[in-house]
């Protein structure tokens, strides 16, 4: 079977759906492919997003949101803790989503805006004419399908192929991916008002463990460790130990695993006729692992640039430069800074982490944002944080 459209979006996660929705709303003929038969499932995510940024991009349906939190608690390896309020806690606290419902909801918005959504349809490769991509070949419910489109948006996640097919090397090094495991845990001791972060090289080497509430007595309890510090099955093994030490009576009702890119901004997210978005473009915050908001933001930009570039008739890499410029301006700088923090953070010993968290014990950080907190940390621990001075000032 053959089809024609203006834009084909590969992958129906938040990045793909926002791109499809924006492009369709601008009048383009959009086809969005999802290789799974169900959108949003199985989940590979801790599901936290900052409330303000989220609500600026979409009007959330009540069923998308599993819990709303007041703040975040960060625990040092020695158990001492600091508390941050929600509005200052950065982009990973605020709402805890129900991704299975949210992802499908967002795909539905793309469909309502006019995009054609095709599930159980897997892209197999790019169609090319004189070496220039002009669509994708796919397998739809086991049957071959050719979709011709002058523009291809790769929103195909951590396992992205679209970029690599177009000559963009998005292969993640082990030091640039966090391998994660998570349980949905039912436990009366879960405080549904706070997200919690647990630091320590025993708990999660070069990563952290988390508890994100999903309602009364229910939370996503998980952890991520740096790929270069992992060995086969380590994430799940460490999560089981963490459960024993921190939620000994917790009842596991779901299991989630996944890889989270933390490479920082890639050299190029565009090629002739191709734009990458979200995890596929490694637009995940390298320090926190959060990637929903950045994917959505980039998705909106991609959709707008798609419409402009098609109108202008230039879909070459040069013609798509506006996307490159805008995503770097909007989120690239943040991702780059975050990557430097991550590269520093992964080297810290438990003693260092205890010192840093402990140094804040007498400070009032409840009203501070992450940047403000870093300034205080730098003032109190200049020697330890010397390498980061250019980021703090």
């Amino acid at each position, binding site marked *: 079977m053959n089809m024609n459209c203006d834009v084909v979006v590969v992958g129906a996660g938040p990045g793909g759906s926002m791109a499809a929705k924006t492009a369709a709303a601008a009048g383009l003929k959009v086809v969005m492919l999802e290789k799974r038969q169900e959108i949003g499932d199985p989940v590979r995510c801790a599901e936290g997003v900052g409330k303000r940024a989220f609500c600026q991009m979409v009007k959330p349906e009540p069923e998308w949101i599993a819990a709303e939190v007041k703040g975040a608690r960060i625990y040092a390896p020695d158990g001492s803790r600091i508390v941050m309020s929600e509005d200052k806690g950065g982009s990973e606290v605020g709402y805890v989503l129900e991704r299975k419902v949210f992802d499908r909801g967002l795909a539905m918005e793309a469909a309502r805006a006019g995009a054609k959504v095709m599930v159980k349809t897997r892209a197999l490769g790019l169609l090319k004419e004189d070496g220039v991509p002009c669509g994708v070949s796919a397998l739809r419910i086991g049957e071959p399908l050719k979709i011709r489109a002058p523009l291809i948006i790769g929103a195909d996640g951590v396992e992205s192929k679209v970029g690599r097919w177009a000559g963009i090397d998005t292969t*993640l090094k082990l030091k640039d991916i966090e391998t994660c495991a998570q349980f949905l845990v039912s436990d009366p001791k879960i405080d549904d008002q706070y997200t919690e972060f647990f630091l320590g090289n025993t708990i999660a080497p070069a990563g952290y463990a988390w508890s994100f509430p999903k309602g009364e007595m229910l939370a996503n309890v998980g952890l991520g460790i740096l790929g270069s510090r992992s060995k086969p099955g380590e994430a799940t093994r460490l999560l089981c130990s963490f459960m024993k030490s921190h939620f000994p009576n917790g009842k596991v009702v779901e299991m989630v695993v996944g*890889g989270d890119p933390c490479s920082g901004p890639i050299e190029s997210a565009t090629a002739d006729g191709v734009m990458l978005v979200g995890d596929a473009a490694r637009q995940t915050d390298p320090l926190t692992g959060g990637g929903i908001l950045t994917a959505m933001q980039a998705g909106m930009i991609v959709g707008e640039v798609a419409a402009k570039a098609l109108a202008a008739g230039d879909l070459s890499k040069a013609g798509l430069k506006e996307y490159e410029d805008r995503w770097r301006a909007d989120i690239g700088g943040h991702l780059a800074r975050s990557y430097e923090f991550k590269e520093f953070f992964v080297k810290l010993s438990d003693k260092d982490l205890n010192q840093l968290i402990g140094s804040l014990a007498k400070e009032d950080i409840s009203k501070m944002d992450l940047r403000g907190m870093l300034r205080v940390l730098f003032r109190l621990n200049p020697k330890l944080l010397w390498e980061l001075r250019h980021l703090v000032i």
Partner: protein
Amino acid sequence: MLTVNRYKCCYCGACVGVCPTTALELVETWLEVSADCKECGICTKICPVGALEVKA
């Protein structure tokens, strides 16, 4: 040879993202290994559940 323990695999696709030869492909719950696999073992380290193993 790279083997996939189908009873362990949670089909998250982390292995696909680190494969230097694009030899892996996740098809819903089924991880495909192509002939391009060089048995480098990078994917085995990243696997959160330990489903991958390079066997002699």
